């Protein structure tokens, strides 16, 4: 990892408190947005309210005439359950008279709505309004002061504010401020950015923020809306935008750390096709990979250097590069690696103003410390090269600040000149900042697609493992990134309750094949999703491969702790005792019934994965996957339960056959006397029954499936499902754990390129 010196100096600078005058706390509405900016009714506003609080609404329906606009005016409130109700604003309750063009300092008769329950409520007006105000008070009051709301912090927010100022001229300009809350990488932290307009004249315009700006490949640039895919709506609002310093402001607490691991996927980056990069992040944030394709020693997105950008999560992340440089040309293969740098950022905020013709003297974005209300300067960036008009009176100077940025507060992003043309006309003008960053470098090799690096006869482009002569393809069952499941009843040969949830085991198999199509590596991903049983049970697997052909077995728990694992001969096959007690994978202590009882919390689980290496390639039919995947009592390994076409291992206590309700016959084992099995293979991840509910109450079509010997209702597990009889959530909500699949690069492995 490369230490982020630039980032460090940035952090020190950024906390220099600026001498901006702190504005008095005010209510929410035209007092902040400007009385000359009418609010578009498409704006959806939000308030997080407590039961009993009162929402005070005042507004004037706005039309650009001096005549009284007498049409009815409503505000629609949608409660946390989604139920909407309309409230009319009248001259006696909430409606300003036509003569009121400036937000009054006091309102005697606002429309007052007392909310019955806690939660987030949505609000929208039925008409353009200006002036307008929404204040929250703890209790009903005969009058409110909309200029001084209770608490002094902003509560009203939207993800997109839309306005109509009625003109491009300076008379319609606004000096308003907005406060934008952006994630800071970890729970319980955020950045608050003050979006400070001075002379912003957009006529009809929106105010919204997100973390990347326009969608790739236009992220972090300003663009004309005429570019394909960049019409109105291309900028996707993401952040909550407030009119006052928000009550939700927390401040940052994490320092980002990134490790650029290199190339993932096939392990090779190809000319003309690109590749996939793997990196690890300690925070959720945004990333940017810059490849110095012009080899000038600088990581400069404004040149032909290739750029890949996106959002990332905590942990491993993959970024896909299409193999082209910043000008769209294919990056040639070379024996000399290209230098690549990966930046990880938190708190990134983009204001990509839509159709804003003028910002003069411009806009600035500064940070706000929620503890002290102090404002701090940061580096502010823009890249307007794609929207320049050539008119020095309209175009921003400088046209871009991509590499180093400019100090916000003292510098503004300025463009336009109060007329209907200019660089912002029908364009997105992106201005952005971020909280802090980390970076790491990697030497990136680009290989020729038609070459054969591992010499196995398969070209790099066609080889899933281009640096491993033993592997070239992967076969998945049921499919790549998809799991199927086996449902077990564990009481055989005693009667079961047929809820088939005593063990619900999701599986995915991947077979690494060599250039001849023969199997060299097998990986088995297993995730127990439920254990609705009193017994403790283990998991075993018999593979139809002679044990002498297996050279190594590795077991991973929760994707980690890889350790050698034992195997033994089982007839002509191989027995692997995967796990002695499945409950070891459930992340809870003392709970007996796991993920089948909706009155109990959902329990998360770890997966278990096996990597089975073969000393010699074998031809293996995958039609019988999941093979003989069985369960056994943890305290009585001879008490096994298998799918009905398997008779048990050599450890099986065969004395159990013929006892209780067992109806096993040759070729058809572990069934009751009516032929019902105690293990059921389902070729998809589906719902499974609630505790003690017979499986046909969840899957009614299984009756027809069974009665027809499988010729009817073949999709019984996905059609006609009575979902209320399946386990969908625990007592605190939350779905049962999904199957966890490890990346092929981890479980199949293969020789890494460059090793």
């Amino acid at each position, binding site marked *: 990892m490369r230490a982020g010196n630039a980032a460090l100096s940035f952090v020190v600078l950024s906390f220099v408190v600026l001498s901006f005058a702190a504005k008095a706390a005010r209510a929410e509405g035209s007092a902040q947005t400007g009385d000359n900016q009418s609010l578009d009714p498409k704006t959806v506003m939000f308030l997080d309210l407590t039961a009993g609080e009162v929402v005070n609404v005042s507004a004037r329906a706005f039309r650009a005439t001096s005549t009284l606009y007498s049409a009815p005016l409503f505000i629609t409130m949608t409660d946390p359950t989604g139920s909407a109700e309309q409230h009319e604003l009248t001259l006696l309750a909430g409606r300003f008279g036509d003569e009121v063009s400036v937000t009054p300092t006091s309102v005697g008769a606002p429309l007052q709505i007392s909310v019955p329950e806690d939660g987030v409520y949505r609000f929208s007006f039925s008409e353009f309004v200006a002036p307008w105000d929404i204040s929250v008070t703890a209790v009903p009051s005969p009058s409110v002061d909309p200029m001084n709301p209770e608490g002094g912090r902003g509560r009203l927010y939207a993800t997109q504010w839309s306005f109509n100022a009625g003109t491009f001229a300076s008379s319609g300009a606004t000096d308003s401020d907005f406060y934008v809350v952006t994630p800071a990488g970890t729970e319980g932290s955020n950045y608050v950015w003050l979006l400070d307009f001075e002379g912003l004249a957009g006529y009809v315009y929106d105010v919204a923020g997100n973390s990347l700006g326009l969608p790739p490949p236009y992220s972090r640039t300003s663009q004309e809306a005429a570019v394909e895919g960049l019409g109105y709506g291309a900028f996707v609002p993401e952040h909550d935008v407030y009119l006052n310093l928000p009550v939700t402001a927390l401040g940052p607490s994490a320092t980002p750390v990134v490790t650029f691991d290199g190339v993932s996927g096939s392990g090779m980056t190809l000319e003309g*096709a690109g590749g996939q990069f793997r990196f690890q992040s300690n925070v959720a944030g945004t990333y940017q990979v810059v490849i110095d394709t012009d080899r000038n020693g600088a990581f400069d997105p404004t040149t032909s250097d290739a750029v890949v950008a996106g959002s990332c999560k905590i942990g491993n992340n993959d970024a896909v590069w299409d193999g082209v440089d910043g000008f769209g040309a294919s990056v040639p293969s070379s024996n000399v690696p290209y230098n690549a740098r990966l930046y990880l950022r938190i708190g990134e905020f983009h204001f990509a103003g839509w159709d804003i013709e003028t910002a003069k003297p411009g806009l600035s974005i500064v940070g706000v410390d929620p503890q002290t209300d102090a404002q701090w300067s940061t580096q502010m960036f823009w890249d307007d090269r794609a929207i320049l008009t050539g008119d020095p009176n309209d175009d921003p100077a400088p046209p871009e600040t991509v590499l180093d940025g400019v100090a916000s507060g003292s510098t503004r992003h300025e463009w336009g000149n109060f007329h209907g043309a200019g660089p912002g006309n029908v364009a997105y003008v992106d201005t952005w900042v971020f909280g802090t960053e980390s970076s790491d470098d990697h030497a990136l090799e680009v290989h020729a697609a038609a070459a054969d690096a591992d010499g*196995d*006869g*398969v*070209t790099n*482009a*066609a*080889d*899933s493992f281009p640096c491993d002569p033993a592997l*070239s*393809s*992967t*076969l*998945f*069952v*049921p*499919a*790549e*990134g*998809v799991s199927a499941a086996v449902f077990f009843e564990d009481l055989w040969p005693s009667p079961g309750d*047929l809820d088939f949830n005593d063990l619900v085991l999701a599986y995915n198999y991947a077979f690494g*094949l060599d*250039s*001849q*199509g023969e199997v060299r590596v097998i990986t088995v991903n297993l995730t127990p999703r439920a254990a609705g049983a009193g017994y403790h049970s283990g998991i075993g697997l018999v593979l139809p491969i002679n044990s002498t052909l297996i050279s190594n077995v590795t077991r991973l728990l929760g994707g980690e702790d890889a350790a050698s694992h034992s195997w033994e001969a089982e007839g002509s096959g191989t027995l692997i005792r995967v796990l002695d007690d499945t409950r070891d994978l459930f992340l809870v202590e003392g709970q007996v019934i796991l993920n089948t009882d909706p009155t109990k919390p959902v329990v998360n689980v770890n997966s278990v994965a096996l990597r089975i290496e073969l000393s010699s390639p074998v031809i293996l*039919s*995958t*039609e*019988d*996957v999941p093979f003989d995947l069985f369960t056994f009592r943890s305290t009585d390994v001879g008490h096994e339960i298998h*799918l*009905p076409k398997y008779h048990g291992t050599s450890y099986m206590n065969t004395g159990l056959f013929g006892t209780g309700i067992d109806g096993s*016959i040759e*070729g*058809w084992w572990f069934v009751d006397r*009516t*032929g*019902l*099995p105690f293990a*059921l*293979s*389902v*070729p*998809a991840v589906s719902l499974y029954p609630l505790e003690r509910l*017979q*499986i*046909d109450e969840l899957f009614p079509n299984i*009756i*027809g*499936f*069974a*009665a*027809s*010997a*499988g*010729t009817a209702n*073949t*999709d*019984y*597990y996905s059609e006609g499902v009575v979902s209320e009889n399946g386990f969908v959530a625990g007592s605190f909500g939350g779905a049962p754990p999904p199957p966890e699949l490890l990346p092929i690069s981890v479980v199949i492995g293969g020789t890494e390129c460059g090793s």
Partner: protein
Amino acid sequence: MNTWKPRTQITAFGLLLTSGCVGGEPSSDSVALPATLRDVDVQQGFRFEATRPVEIHLETSLPHSGGALIVRRTSGDVIFRGSLPVSGSLVLRYPLPRHEEEFDVTFGPADDPRSLRLVVGSDGIAKGAM
């Protein structure tokens, strides 16, 4: 410029379960189903398998690997990702859900890929269609 011209011959077929693995006749609408699963008299030999094995043969007479090969299920999920074998023949025996009927196969060089849809008919035989 790709000069790879397929003398590739692709055939595909599915196999019914071997004798004795499938039993019984489809139930008709006129026959009332049992009320619950416990009341079903499961016909001997039926193992409640919701999949059937389908065999796909991919054959080529090319001297070298002809490029990438991807096989997808009806859902679009990838079941095979890699290359045609150097030997020129690949046989996949795959447990296909009984109600699914198609595979999509994409093969050949990246700049000149070919696609084929394999349809598994009611007779259990998969047929290719360009």
